[in-house]
């Protein structure tokens, strides 16, 4: 099955500046003809390129908002991070009311099923052989492990994430209320690209219970527009009786799962580079004793998602404040527990597991002798290349260029050092090297810059 990718490059906006290429943790990006190109077999939808792009040329494909109206019964599945986007003086019930007004009859928070997820996860933590168990909460991490750490796929916790469990729950509830399955549309409001990919091509599952995905930034715009229009004249809706527990509010933050883990030794790591560094050690069996690993692709976890609006630290602060407030109510026994969800506990626990998670490792060749031949050639080439990783060849590193030359037919003359070397020996003239330059950076690279200067 082809893997869906939410991150795409808008060729019209892309200036081929290669910022994205330099930050991609799986070396999935190349610059050709003056534009960045993403290799879909390597991309894990982490969003580093989106953050690095100075021209807003990396975009996250989303479903058309009007799609929701194809369904008579519309559900907005919102993560707690969404409510964390707004200032403290905008109440949760006001945001719920606006979501109702723009088309969703039902609003449910993703983390409402966190207690069920945690129960199933802790059971696995007690029983599992493969240690450390690695959380599947963050889909970019799941994809990273599939692509880069195939040996650790068996350490991934084979459970649906709270998002999918909640989608399953709300569908069941609405079906019991009399809705036909095909009339229910569940739309997830995502803080990142990876969750979109997870919904469009779920790992270890045939089909997701989510019908569509709405980017958090675009929904923020819609809601904020309403807030501005309303001014002081607004209504609030009575919130559903079942509210998130303080623990559930914090699930999507760094340490959110770890603090509920039953394992004696567990770690929580956020950021792609940090996660990769640690996974290398786990893969080499250098890590002993750690039983549970919570890895999140974004700094500060979901509040750092690329589709969020608010500063990630402020989002964390707001979510902590909310959790503290709820914790106070819990202590005083004032909080009504999510009884409706608890009633479906058995059903959800029975449907919480996902099938086998497959590796999607990238090797030089599926045939080991051929791979070995290629690797010998690549190693020889690496010695010829300058190891400067300047990126002028449109490839993120000298090593990546060596691999592209042997496996994908790239020419060694892409290397600017080799070009100069050949020019000095009169083996290459200026026209030839300019042609190579244009193939990589596009013919307009210099001209465009001049035109921009004139405009100023």
């Amino acid at each position: 099955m082809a893997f869906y990718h939410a991150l795409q490059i808008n060729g019209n906006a892309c200036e081929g500046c290669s910022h994205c290429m330099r930050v991609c943790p799986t070396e999935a990006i190349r610059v050709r003809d003056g534009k960045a190109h993403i290799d879909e077999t390597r991309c894990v939808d982490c969003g580093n390129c989106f953050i690095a792009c100075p021209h807003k040329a990396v975009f996250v494909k989303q479903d058309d908002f009007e799609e929701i109206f194809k369904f008579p019964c519309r559900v907005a599945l919102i993560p707690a991070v969404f409510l964390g986007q707004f200032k403290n003086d905008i109440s949760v019930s006001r945001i719920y009311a606006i979501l109702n007004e723009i088309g969703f009859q039902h609003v449910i928070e993703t983390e409402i099923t966190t207690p069920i997820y945690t129960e199933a996860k802790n059971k696995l933590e007690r029983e599992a052989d493969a240690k450390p168990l690695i959380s599947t909460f963050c889909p970019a991490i799941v994809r990273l492990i599939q692509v880069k750490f195939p040996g650790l796929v068996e350490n991934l916790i084979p459970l649906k994430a709270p998002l999918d469990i909640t989608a399953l729950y709300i569908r069941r509830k609405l079906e019991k209320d009399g809705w036909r399955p095909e009339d229910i549309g569940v739309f997830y409001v995502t803080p990142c690209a990876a969750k979109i990919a997870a919904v469009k091509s779920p790992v270890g599952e045939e089909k997701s219970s989510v019908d569509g995905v709405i980017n958090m930034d675009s929904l923020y715009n819609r809601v904020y527009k309403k807030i501005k229009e309303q001014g002081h004249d607004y209504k609030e809706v009575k919130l559903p009786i079942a509210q998130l527990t303080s623990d559930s509010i914090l699930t999507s933050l760094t340490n959110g799962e770890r603090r509920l883990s039953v394992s004696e030794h567990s770690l929580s790591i956020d950021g792609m580079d940090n996660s990769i560094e640690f996974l290398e050690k786990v893969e080499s069996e250098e890590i002993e004793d750690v039983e549970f690993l919570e890895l999140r692709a974004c700094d500060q976890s979901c509040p750092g998602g690329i589709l969020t609006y608010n500063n990630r630290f402020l989002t964390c602060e707001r979510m902590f404040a909310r959790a503290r407030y709820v914790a106070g109510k819990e202590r005083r026994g004032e909080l009504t527990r999510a009884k409706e969800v608890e009633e479906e506990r058995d059903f959800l626990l029975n449907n919480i597991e996902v099938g086998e998670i497959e590796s999607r490792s990238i090797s030089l060749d599926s045939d080991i002798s051929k791979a070995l031949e290629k690797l010998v050639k690549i190693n020889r080439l690496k010695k010829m290349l300058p190891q400067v990783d300047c990126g002028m060849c449109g490839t993120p590193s000298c090593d990546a260029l060596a691999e592209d030359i042997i496996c994908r037919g790239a020419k060694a003359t892409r290397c600017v050092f080799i070009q100069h070397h050949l020019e000095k020996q009169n083996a290459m003239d200026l026209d030839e090297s300019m042609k190579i330059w244009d193939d990589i950076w596009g013919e307009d690279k210099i001209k465009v810059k001049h035109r921009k200067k004139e405009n100023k």
Partner: protein
Amino acid sequence: MHLEYTIVEGDFVNAGSASSSIKKTLKQLNVNPSIVKRVVVALYEAEVNAIAHAYGGKVTADIDAGTILLRVIDRGPGIPDIDWAMQEGNSTASPEVRDMGFGAGMGLPNIKKNVDRLNVQSTVGVGTTVEMEVNLA
């Protein structure tokens, strides 16, 4: 394909550099992850042994389509009784080495469990060569 790495006496900080480099190579060759894991565990163990007990040495790896042959060659005190050292729990590690979490006497036995062929050659006062072979398919 032939690869070589240097081992420095007492340099536990860099223990595992040969095994992680070889891990990367085997992954590029599409070797089954469970086999990669065995190679890495065995080589790491042998690396630590040489760092702990010897006065330096080297690791060599020869990879062909069917097997990987690893040699950890050290200059060191040698192992007087190889059969004794092959038994779990037997260790000559110093208290300092044990304090660092090494030296439990599981080195050679653990290597044996993870490789398909193991050959230990040792001359007291000269050094030890641990030869490990793992089938790649």
